[in-house]
């Protein structure tokens, strides 16, 4: 529903956020290398429009083309067929159909042939097909991702590993990563979301970190539609069911309803873990002679082709198409994952593994080829040694299965018995499935798939060619032709609301309907949980050195703005995420991103992606924030319509001394309500102040269905000053230096819904009224001009002096107190009524239809 100008807003299209704490940063979308990351599946891409069953190579009857050096195939192995020389024309055709059916283009096949110096057999084709999928290779986005800044003094591990790692001080590091699980969740919301959580947890503990927080930004269509409610219910149940059981608190996220996601919901998941710096491990194999041990679950046919079937194509919109893909969604088992986490952390603590890698998208082929490539070695894999869930599985199925809850550990032969002992105690299955091998005479490490160690060679390819040498695409870019007309169609011309109060109440929504279903308190770290500007966590976990520090985590996005200007919209999302962590007293130190976009074969989508990357880079440079990880999810489309560009930013902040709770979104009777503002003044006629832009605002989009106009400007230098001011003020208070009467009673950034919603949220969350002036009209009330923070303080002069020093504008809007919310002449409503609207919004949308609730 891109450019769905004039779309009718739903009765209560709420965007809200339940933000929470977190720490550290993520990894993956590497600007520098082929981040062949198998994560648990996001949206990748792939050219050849794979049919739903395209991953069944048997469909392409017969054996593959044989090549000069093709390994011998095992008898009866349908995929590793090494057809005799002299294939008929019909065989040639069949082979051609094969690579296309697997999702490789003719050009990619030619590249494979060049790498191998021969034709690949069918198993090898299958390996390349999954590893060179958009999902695993980032082949459409990598050329753009290179423009992101990834360096910083605190960055221990940047993009390209399983997770980004940031030095938090006191000998403690923070690992962070974000991913999407969009298409699986669209098809099977509960398992799709659950396995999204499971996959990202493995990315974090792979680094040696204990996962301590998860956040979930979620995007759905209009909840008035039964199908959307089914998705919401299922996704939240999946996150809750898996996350709670596996024992990692879910401390925040976002919930957005917009018709743009009707055919393609977005389910992103961010995870943060903590580790002693000296336990940091990387996913690499080394030491020829070492063994590769598969830990955890058995391997089944679930999730085969997850990356190529689900993550590589959009939804056509035809009836039943999504349902037909349901078997490609993996099924999660949080209990298996819980034991796997404990076993792996114990193995890492005891230094019993040389390297470790999770199995996610592209399964065993990805884990083995990536660890070998990173270590500069080769690996032999005995495909018969892999414990299987069902009989009759072909080698390509075993190698590409995305069965969940599996890890690959590289272990010395001497330590193998101790590894097996630890795993036995945690009831985790082990199987030696591979051996690290020397590179060949030319220094090339080979991934060989064997029919038993010493048995037939079923596949033999350079490991690096799978993980690092996927093709790079410079896809065509095109600015949407309708963009100028959209930018000119400003919502400032819309008639003013008959009742600003009514519009304001309709924009309020308490996200606790979602987050009370998540355990957000486990580990006794959650100082500020979901619902605040950012989550705040103590920097603590079993086995960590003691620390007074804290971590703050926020995720933000602004697809309404990004659809009009992806560059400044993405910059604004970075700015907002950083400001959110600052509101809790943290210095923002790093970001991760999840780039959810449409079909990369549409030049407009590639333009949006390129612009978004540039905006992200500009904001990150201006704010001093390295990008330590990310994920690109493409092909988010249905029935030919791309979603609005939705880059999601996760910001990690550090609190130096966390001894008192941050003020949070709150008011105190009698204190002043102050606006700190570092945004550019709206431009008006000479000598006059202009009207703030309503373009891309929640009011315009949700209340008026107006999706056009020119969004507000963003002044990154001013924004950086505001972040410094707010983080400094709040940091003094959380360090316990606020004195007997704290300087700040409440802090809240102004974002979706503008000043009106921000003031109302302060009131409804504290149950205290507010009377504020300086709000002339609905533009002042609802415009989402960036770089603004509301503060409630008993000592406004003191705050004003600090603002003046920082070069931030300071305005006393009014006073907190009483039992009404009074905003200029526009809004006058009892706090109790606002609270009822706020609390009732989501239950009215989502519970009204639920099975009996009493």
């Amino acid at each position, binding site marked *: 529903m891109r450019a769905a100008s004039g779309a009718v807003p739903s009765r209560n299209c709420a965007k809200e956020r339940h933000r929470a704490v977190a720490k550290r940063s993520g990894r993956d979308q590497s600007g520098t290398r082929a981040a062949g990351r198998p994560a648990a599946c996001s949206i990748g891409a792939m050219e050849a429009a794979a049919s739903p069953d395209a991953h069944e190579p048997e469909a392409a009857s017969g054996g593959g083309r044989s090549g000069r050096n093709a390994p011998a195939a095992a008898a009866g192995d349908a995929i590793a067929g090494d057809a005799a020389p002299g294939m008929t024309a019909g065989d040639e055709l069949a082979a051609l159909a094969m690579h296309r059916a697997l999702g490789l283009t003719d050009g990619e096949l030619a590249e494979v042939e060049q790498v191998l110096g021969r034709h690949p057999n069918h198993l090898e084709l299958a390996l390349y097909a999954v590893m060179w999928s958009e999902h695993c290779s980032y082949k459409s986005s990598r050329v753009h991702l290179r423009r992101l800044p990834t360096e910083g003094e605190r960055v221990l591990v940047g993009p390209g590993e399983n997770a980004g790692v940031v030095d938090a001080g006191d000998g403690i590091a923070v690992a962070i990563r974000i991913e999407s699980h969009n298409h699986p969740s669209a098809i099977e919301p509960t398992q799709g979301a659950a396995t999204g959580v499971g996959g990202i947890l493995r990315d974090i503990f792979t680094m040696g970190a204990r996962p301590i927080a998860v956040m979930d930004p979620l995007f759905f269509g209009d909840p008035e539609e039964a199908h959307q409610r089914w998705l919401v219910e299922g996704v939240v149940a999946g996150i*809750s*069911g898996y996350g*709670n*059981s*596996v*024992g990692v608190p879910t401390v925040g996220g976002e919930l957005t309803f917009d018709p743009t996601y009707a055919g393609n919901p977005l389910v992103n998941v961010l995870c943060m873990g903590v580790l002693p710096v000296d336990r940091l491990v990387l996913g690499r194999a080394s030491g020829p002679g070492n063994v590769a041990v598969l830990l955890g679950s058995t391997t089944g046919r679930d999730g085969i082709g997850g990356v190529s079937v689900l993550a590589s194509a959009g939804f056509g919109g035809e009836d039943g198409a999504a349902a037909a893909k349901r078997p490609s969604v993996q099924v999660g*088992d*949080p*209990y*298996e994952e*819980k*034991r796997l986490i*404990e076993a792996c952390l114990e193995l890492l603590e005891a230094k019993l593994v040389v390297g470790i890698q999770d199995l996610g998208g592209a399964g065993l082929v990805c884990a083995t080829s990536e660890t070998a490539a990173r270590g500069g070695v080769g690996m032999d894999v005995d495909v018969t040694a892999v414990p299987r869930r069902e009989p009759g599985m072909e080698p390509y199925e075993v190698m590409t299965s995305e069965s969940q809850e599996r890890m690959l550990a590289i272990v010395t032969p001497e330590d193998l018995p101790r590894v097996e002992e630890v795993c036995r105690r*945690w*009831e985790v299955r082990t199987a030696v499935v591979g051996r690290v091998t020397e590179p060949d005479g030319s220094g090339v490490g080979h991934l060989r798939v064997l029919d038993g160690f010493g048995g037939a060679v079923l596949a033999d390819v350079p490991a690096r060619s799978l993980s690092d040498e996927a093709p790079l695409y410079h896809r065509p870019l095109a600015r949407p032709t309708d963009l100028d007309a959209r930018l000119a169609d400003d919502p400032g011309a819309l008639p003013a609301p008959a009742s600003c109060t009514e519009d304001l109440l309709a924009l309020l929504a308490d996200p*606790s309907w979602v*987050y*009370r*279903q*998540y*355990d*957000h*308190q*486990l*580990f*006794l770290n*959650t*100082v500020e949980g979901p619902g605040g500007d950012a989550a705040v966590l*103590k920097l603590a976990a*079993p086995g960590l050195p003691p620390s007074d520090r804290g971590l703050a985590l926020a995720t933000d996005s602004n697809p309404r703005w990004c659809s009009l200007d992806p560059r400044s919209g993405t910059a604004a999302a970075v700015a907002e995420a950083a400001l959110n962590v600052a509101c809790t007293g943290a210095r923002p130190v790093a970001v991760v991103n999840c780039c959810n976009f449409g079909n990369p074969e549409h030049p407009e989508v590639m333009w949006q992606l390129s612009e978004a990357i540039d905006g992200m880079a500009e904001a990150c440079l201006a704010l001093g924030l390295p990008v330590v990880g990310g994920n690109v999810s493409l092909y988010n489309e249905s029935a030919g319509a791309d979603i609005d560009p939705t880059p999601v930013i996760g910001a990690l902040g550090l609190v130096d001394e*966390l*001894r*008192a*709770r941050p003020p949070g979104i709150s008011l105190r009777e009698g204190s002043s309500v102050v606006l700190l503002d570092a945004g550019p003044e709206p431009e008006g006629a000479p000598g006059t102040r202009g009207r703030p832009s309503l373009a891309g605002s929640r009011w315009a989009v949700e209340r008026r269905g107006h999706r056009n106009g020119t969004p507000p400007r963003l002044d990154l230098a001013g924004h950086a000053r505001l972040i410094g001011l707010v983080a400094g003020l709040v940091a003094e208070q959380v360090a316990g230096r606020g004195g007997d009467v704290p300087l700040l009673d409440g802090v809240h950034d102004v974002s979706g819904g503008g000043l009106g919603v921000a003031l109302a949220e302060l009131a409804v969350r504290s149950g205290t009224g507010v009377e504020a002036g300086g709000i002339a009209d609905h533009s002042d009330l609802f415009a989402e001009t960036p770089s603004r923070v509301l503060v409630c303080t008993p000592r406004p002069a003191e705050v004003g002096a600090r603002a003046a020093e920082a070069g931030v504008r300071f305005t006393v809007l009014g006073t907190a107190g009483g039992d009404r919310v009074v905003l200029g002449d526009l809004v006058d409503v009892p706090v109790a009524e606002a609270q009822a609207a706020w609390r009732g919004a989501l239950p009215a949308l989502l519970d009204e239809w*639920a*099975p009996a*609730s*009493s």
Partner: protein
Amino acid sequence: MAARVGVVVFPGSNCEHDVVQSVRALGAEAELVWHHQDDLGGVDAVVLPGGFAHGDYLRPGAIARFAPVLEAIARFAADGGPVVGICNGFQVLTEAGLLPGALQKNRGLRFVCETVELEVATDRSVLTGGVAPGTRLRVPVNHFEGNYTCDARTLAELRDDDRVVLRYVDNPNGSVDDIAGVCNAGRNVVGLMPHPERACDPLLGSTDGRVLLSALLGASVPC
């Protein structure tokens, strides 16, 4: 001499470190007790922590009740030793027959994680000794199966014998008679759905859980 508290770990438990941390902060010693152990090693009190023992497969506590450690706990309890089951630990104790009743799915069929208000119903238990009945405490709950149920005769017994330990002020899960915690006839085995260990640090918003854990430690003084 400080009391020694054994905190039981099943595969799938997840609140064991939280309980250890909170108990230690109150000056007691705490150690983890693995589910395969058939001996409690001379601890003064036992806590079965929250989590998802054995994945809650079949139903919460249904597999954990067969662990060797449960036999040791039953002996310890029969000798009058203080035993507290929190959340999943409560579910395990009911499955093991050490406490009456059962925990069924919440009314509304959704997981609930939030801080609730509790009222102490009796001071005659190892978890509430010295805490005046009627005392209100703010303590988090975090469960899907926390809806306490039992037959009418058991409920009458619990009431008549003053064995309802804690009640919800605003029932979050549909529990019969607003029950949040009960004890056995000996008053030395207590099960409760709320998590007192989550309410022991002012940074986290409530320290009301200390009242309960302190009472447990008071009842566990080594002899």
